[in-house]
């Protein structure tokens, strides 16, 4: 089972994610913006997977991931987007992103993707 760092600016989404991911046996840490993601990693080390919301105040998930990638990290990262199509998320093509999750979240699919990325 994987250690997953989830970032979203909505408390209820974080609660939902934590509940569903913990039910599937994963260990979950949460952050409410990109800045907290970087702080959490600096404090307790790199998790097995990042699940980052594309749009958050202060620092977006994409900006946080960019900093990590610039620092040389290869950690698997999934971007959660409110957009229906990944192409609509205005996602940068120069950034290694391992997958897109759209809201509302299809948890069956999310759990399958997590299993693929962490094995």
């Amino acid at each position: 089972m994987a250690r997953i760092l989830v970032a979203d600016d909505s408390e209820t989404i974080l609660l939902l994610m934590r509940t569903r991911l913990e039910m599937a046996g994963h260990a979950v840490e949460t952050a409410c913006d990109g800045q907290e993601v970087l702080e959490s990693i600096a404090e307790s080390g790199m998790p097995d997977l990042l699940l980052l919301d594309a749009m958050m105040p202060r620092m977006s998930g994409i900006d946080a991931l960019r900093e990590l990638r610039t620092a040389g990290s290869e950690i698997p990262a999934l971007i959660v987007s409110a957009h229906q199509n990944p192409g609509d998320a205005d996602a940068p093509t120069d950034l290694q992103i391992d997958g897109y999750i759209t809201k509302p979240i299809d948890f069956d699919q999310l759990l399958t993707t997590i299993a693929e990325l962490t094995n």
Partner: protein
Amino acid sequence: MAVIGVARFIQQRQDFEDAIARSYQVEMAARERIVAGTGGRPARAAVAREARHRSELRDQISGDTRDTALLVAAGLIAGLTGALLLFSGLISSMRRPLEELVDAAGRLAAGDRSARVEVGGLSETAALGAAFNEMAEELEREASQRDQLDRLKDEFVLTASHELRSPLTSVQGFAELLMLERESLTPRQVETVEVILDNCRHLVRLLNDLLDLARSDAGRLAIRPEPTAVAPLVDDVVRTIRAQTDAGGQTLTENLQPGLPPIEVEPARIRQILVNLLTNAHEYCPGGASIEVTARASGAEVEISVSDDGPGIPNDQLERIFERFTRGDAGLTQRVGGTGLGLAISKSLVELHGGTIEAESTVGQGSTFRFRVPVAAGTGVQGGRAPAEAS
């Protein structure tokens, strides 16, 4: 010149007549002296001299008249030429601004909001040009206000659908969480959660549709076409929809021409169109209806159609069927889950692919929706029913 000639002629004529009259007076006075017997030779000489003088005067005046007539004629010719020159100058000085005006009006009508004319020349054409520019200015101002409103509207829909998605994710997510523990729920609670989930799915569909339309309006609905085999795509969608048509007691058949060439499309978008057309057929047709998907090559395009033998669409509704929030009567009266946006989006998507979509229906006999999308260029690969053979 003609005026000068005529004035000179009148003056000459006056002088001549005065001279003749004086000559007659001198002659008459001389004749009176002769009759009175007081004139003698000088009086007779005066009579002869005056007669000669008048004859000279007559010769002179006829010569002057001829000269003057020539002068008048020359003057008239010169005047006419001048007038013509002036007139043609006037015409050409009006023609250029008018041509420019016609050209600018044409460009303005064709949508070039920056079309203006150079104001100058005669005061009348200058005023016309200024009035035209003022009108164009006003049109441009209105158009840019409209553009701004459109942008605001698009931004609003994009932001709203984005913002609504987060709470909706929570509602759906927690309802699903409840359903994961359904064995500890009463049947009534399960039913309640199912209603919540049903409505969540409907809201998601509405949000997705609104987002698509807003993106399409803003010119930001982009597609990434790739050579795509038709049969696997159609098979897949039909498999997805079959669960619903089976449950509704409807027959769903597939009729694909063998050896179809691959099409140049974004598979997810064609799937979206097909799901929309098939879902419509399923939802608007009663139990026992037949629904058929066909695909055939047609020139440089592949035509995919969805036909049913359902209730059909009256002509007045058929005309507006691809407009937003247009729904058939059944959609308004029965429990049909559509948003009224599906066909508008399908049309946008087909057109983004450079294709066309149309609807045909006879009330009581059924409806056919067909769209055409371009065959992948230069592949020369036959997709057909066997994608393995295609590559």
